[in-house]
Structure formats: structure tokens, C-alpha cells
């Protein structure tokens, strides 16, 4: 049973009570990191107050409670993305970036060799580009890019040609710059038809729409806790059990071993093989609370809410600024999410963001860790406003009013 009440969601987020430069905070930087509801903050706080102990080690009561909480979070995440093999397929990392490094440096290093192709897209975050370049230095793989159309969509017109020699198609579910949503299910079918696997960067998409790895027919999914109302310091790497079981360990140390002798070591089985050292336990507890919170809202309600807000914002930006503020991304809401990149004519994004800051408006100026995409559209940077479950039309009101000041000031 889900229940989505935008007012109640806002009331659950303490940081929305902040006042910045005499203005109530207008938080439009969810694509960078989301705000946390009390449910998440309290769960982590309660954990530290009552149950903190290291996991998978001691036999005392709080230690087994901590272990149960940590492993319980794995189950919640598995349920959230419908992992067919359950919690045993969910590896906790530090963030989505580390998850991609795990993919490249464990699965990639073992399964890819000179001449093999990893196909990514021009709209990827650096996290889904640089690890492949690093692997290329060691193995001689080819990193190939799917281009972007002039209207900010993935250009799939030559996809079958691009798929030649591809072992892995690694692609974002939703661009963190353009807001474009990629046809992941169709891409999975194409990849599998060519005998390749598909990895999806869910850093943006998982937090803003339902994600079902079985229905989408994915092989790998990567995402992070702090963009989905959870804490920083915890990310997720999911793959099917048979792939995970065949992957060599990533980081070495305690926790990831079955045995260590003077002549070598034997790695542990399952997800723990990839979780060297004391893991982010409190963060896992927070992520579990975030998953429960989002399940309570219902992801279909979340996507509907954000879709409506972004659609309204696109319309009003055009009405208000007549092209003086250009949207760098699809202009309508077809296959698009609540990430809106803006180019304000004649005003540098840092100056726009600085003016907006004086109105308590939090947006992100910059290249958004997607420099190849920025170059594609001849931009050094954009100003990005992004919506979350707690956003409302008042946020857009303030954004537009503050943008008006920036335009006037530098006009």
C-alpha cells in the first residue's frame, strides 16, 4: 500500500526548514545528492545509539543485531530492484563510481581482452567512462561511444553497426545532464542479440522510477544511496548470481576472505568477496530506511510527481524567458526525467548559480562530470536544476524569479 502526499514528504525532510540568506531553502540539486527524510536520519542515529558493532565477526548480542541490520539492508535493496537471486546478488560499495570500478576491474579484467569492445554513450558520467579507459590501458580493449542526437537523445540509428565486437554495453538509465531517459529494455535486447551483456548506470534512474532488473533483462546495475534519499558512503553493485560467482575479488583485505595462509588466500563466496574491510554499516541501515520510505511513497507515484513538476518547469521557462534561457535536454516530457540543464544566454553558469544562491536556490553549475557530452554541445558548463520526491511548484516559482534576476543583472 503506497501513499504519496507531497506536503507530507516535504514535512519529513528537516533540511527543507533551512533558511539561506533570509530565504527558505529551494533545493533543486537532487541529481547531485538528495536530501534525507527523518526516517533515514533517525534509523542511522538509532543504530549508532543502540546497536553499533562490527558485522560478521563477534558473537555478542549487538554484533548479531548489527549483522542482521546490514544483511537486512541487502535484502531490502534486492527487493527494491527485484533481484532474481535475492540478497546474494547485491554488493555494497562506496558509491556508484566504485561500483563501476568493481565492474571494470573485476568482471572486465577477467572477461575482456585486446580487441573486445565496451560500448558506452556520449552522455555517460565520467564514472562510466574513465574505468573503461583505465582498463584499456591494461588490456587493449576498445571503448566505443554511441552518439547523441541534436535533440539530446541517444542516437540508436547505427546501433547494430556499433555493436560489432561489443562484449559489454554500459549505459546510463537517465542522463544526469540532459534528463533523457534511455530505452534500457530495448538496449538490453539488442545487446543480448549480439551476444553482449548490458550494464546500466542507475545513479539517476533508480531514485526516480521503478527499476526491475528482471523485466528490463539487465546483467549489471549500478547505483548509489545518497541520490535516493539515503546516506552518502554506500553504493550498490548488482549482477546475476552466476556472473557474480565467477567474478574475481576486487579489493583485498579482511572480510572478503574464506582463509588466509602464509602462502596465499582463498576468497569468500557471495557479495562479501567484494566487501573488503569494515563495510558502511550505518549507511546500509540508512539505505534500508530510504528503500522503505520510497516503497511507502511508491516509485510510480514518485515518477508521476517529478514528471509533472519538470513538465510544468519546461513550459514556464519557455513562457518566461522566450529562449533566453535554453534547456539543454529534451524540450518535452517524452522519455525524460526531472533533471533540467539550462544555458542562460550571455551569463556564465557560475554567475547564474551565484545569483540563485542569494535566493536560497541550490542548483549545480558545471560540467556535471560529463565533459564529452559538454563538448558535444559546445558548452563548458550548464546550470542544472533537478527535482526530487519532496520538490514542489514553489521551487519552480523561486527558480524562475531568481533566474529573472540573473538575466537582468548581466543583461
Amino acid at each position, binding site marked *: 500500500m503506497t501513499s504519496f502526499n507531497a506536503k507530507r514528504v516535504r514535512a519529513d525532510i528537516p533540511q527543507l526548514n533551512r533558511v539561506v*540568506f*533570509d*530565504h527558505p531553502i529551494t533545493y533543486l540539486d537532487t541529481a547531485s545528492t538528495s536530501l534525507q527524510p527523518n526516517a533515514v536520519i533517525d534509523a542511522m542515529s538509532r543504530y549508532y545509539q543502540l546497536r553499533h558493532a562490527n558485522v560478521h565477526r563477534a558473537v555478542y548480542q549487538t554484533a548479531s543485531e548489527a549483522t542482521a541490520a546490514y544483511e537486512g539492508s541487502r535484502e531490502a535493496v534486492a527487493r527494491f530492484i527485484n533481484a532474481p537471486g535475492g540478497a546474494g546478488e547485491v554488493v555494497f560499495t562506496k558509491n556508484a563510481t566504485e561500483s563501476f570500478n568493481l565492474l571494470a576491474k573485476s568482471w572486465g579484467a577477467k572477461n575482456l581482452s585486446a580487441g573486445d569492445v565496451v560500448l558506452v554513450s556520449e552522455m555517460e558520467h565520467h564514472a562510466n567512462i574513465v574505468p573503461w579507459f583505465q582498463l584499456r590501458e591494461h588490456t587493449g580493449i576498445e571503448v566505443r561511444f554511441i552518439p547523441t542526437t541534436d535533440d539530446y537523445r541517444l542516437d540508436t540509428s547505427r546501433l547494430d553497426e556499433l555493436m560489432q565486437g561489443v562484449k559489454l554495453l554500459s549505459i546510463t538509465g537517465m542522463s544526469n545532464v540532459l534528463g533523457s531517459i534511455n530505452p534500457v529494455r530495448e538496449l538490453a535486447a539488442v545487446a543480448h542479440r549480439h551476444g553482449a551483456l548490458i550494464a546500466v548506470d542507475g545513479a539517476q534512474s533508480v531514485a526516480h522510477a521503478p527499476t526491475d532488473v528482471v523485466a528490463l533483462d539487465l546483467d549489471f546495475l549500478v547505483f548509489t544511496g545518497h541520490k535516493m534519499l539515503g546516506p552518502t558512503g554506500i553504493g550498490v553493485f548488482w549482477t546475476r548470481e552466476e556472473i557474480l560467482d565467477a567474478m574475481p575479488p576486487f579489493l583485498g583485505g579482511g572480510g572478503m576472505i574464506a582463509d588466509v595462509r602464509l602462502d596465499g588466500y582463498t576468497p569468500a563466496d557471495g557479495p562479501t568477496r567484494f566487501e573488503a574491510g569494515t563495510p558502511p554499516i550505518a549507511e546500509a541501515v540508512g539505505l534500508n530506511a530510504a528503500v522503505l520510505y520510497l516503497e511507502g511513497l511508491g516509485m510510480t507515484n514518485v515518477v508521476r510527481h517529478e514528471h509533472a513538476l519538470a513538465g510544468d518547469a519546461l513550459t514556464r521557462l519557455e513562457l518566461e524567458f522566450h529562449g533566453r534561457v535554453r534547456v539543454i535536454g529534451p524540450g518535452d516530457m517524452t522519455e525524460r526525467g526531472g533533471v533540467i540543464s539550462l544555458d542562460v544566454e550571455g551569463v*556564465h*553558469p*557560475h*554567475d547564474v548559480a*551565484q*545569483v540563485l544562491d*542569494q*535566493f536560497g536556490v541550490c542548483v549545480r*553549475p*558545471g*560540467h556535471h562530470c560529463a565533459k564529452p557530452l*559538454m563538448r558535444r554541445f559546445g558548452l*563548458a*558548463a550548464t546550470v542544472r536544476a533537478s527535482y526530487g520526491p519532496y520538490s514542489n511548484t514553489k521551487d519552480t516559482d*523561486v527558480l524562475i*524569479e*531568481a533566474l529573472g*534576476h540573473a538575466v537582468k*543583472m*548581466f543583461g
Partner: protein
Amino acid sequence: MSDLGSNLDDLYREIILDHYRSPRNRGELESPPAIRVEGFNPLCGDEIVVYLDIEDGILKNIKMVGSGCSISQSSASLMSSAVKGKTLDQVRATIAMFKQLMTVQESTLAHDGEAPKVDLRALGELAALQGVIKFPVRIKCATLAWNALVEGLDGLD
């Protein structure tokens, strides 16, 4: 909402906006003989190329091309106006004063705002950049062209 706030007015002084809209000493010099130095801010993508024509210990001419935010570009323009035609000793003194403006005030802010120790009158128009100090993340914008200038002068030694 009409009040933009005094902090913002401090940052975007009219002089700064003027130099941003109408940058002085834009352009290139043939290099060589002119010294060519690049400045680049990988974080925000701001860039500047500074050309220095130095003869007999005098900065005879300075030209710049680049793109970036109003602070980086106006600071570059203000810098070029302040140092053009000056002896290298005067240029170095101006750089020292500007760097002091960017650092002294930062430390005074941290210590409950004692009076700044920089002679703002000696800085002339450059004093318009003092508001930057209230926005620490923008200091690197303001110093971009200056660091390029320093690099160019260092290359002389």
C-alpha cells in the same frame, strides 16, 4: 525577492560588470616575440591565454583571450589595465597587493573581521574585486589570470 542582498552587490560591483561586458586588452600578440601563458580551471572550465610583450624591463603590452565567468574574465581585464605599461617591478608589486587582497581578507574574515590591512586606494579599480573574498569558491576565478601572469614573469628568470 527584489533585494539582491548586499553580499551579491559586493561581488558584482558595477566596475566588474563593466569589465565583463567590455573587457579591456582583448586579443592576441604574435608569439614569439610575445610570451604566451595559458591558465585553466579544470573544475569549471574557465580558461585564459595571456600574451605579454616585455621590453627593457617594461610590460609594453598585454593581451588576453579566454572564456569564463564574470569574475575570472573581469579580473583578467582589470589586471591588464592595472599592469599595462608598467615596469616589471611595478607589475610584481601590483600582483603582490592583489594576492594580499585575496588572502589577507580571507584570514580577517576568519578572525571576526578586523580591518583589512590592504591599502585599497593603492589598488585603484582592482579594489572592486575585494567582494570576491566573501565567496571563497570564487577566489580561484579571480586569481586565474593573475596566476598566468605570474607564470609568464617567472619564465623570464
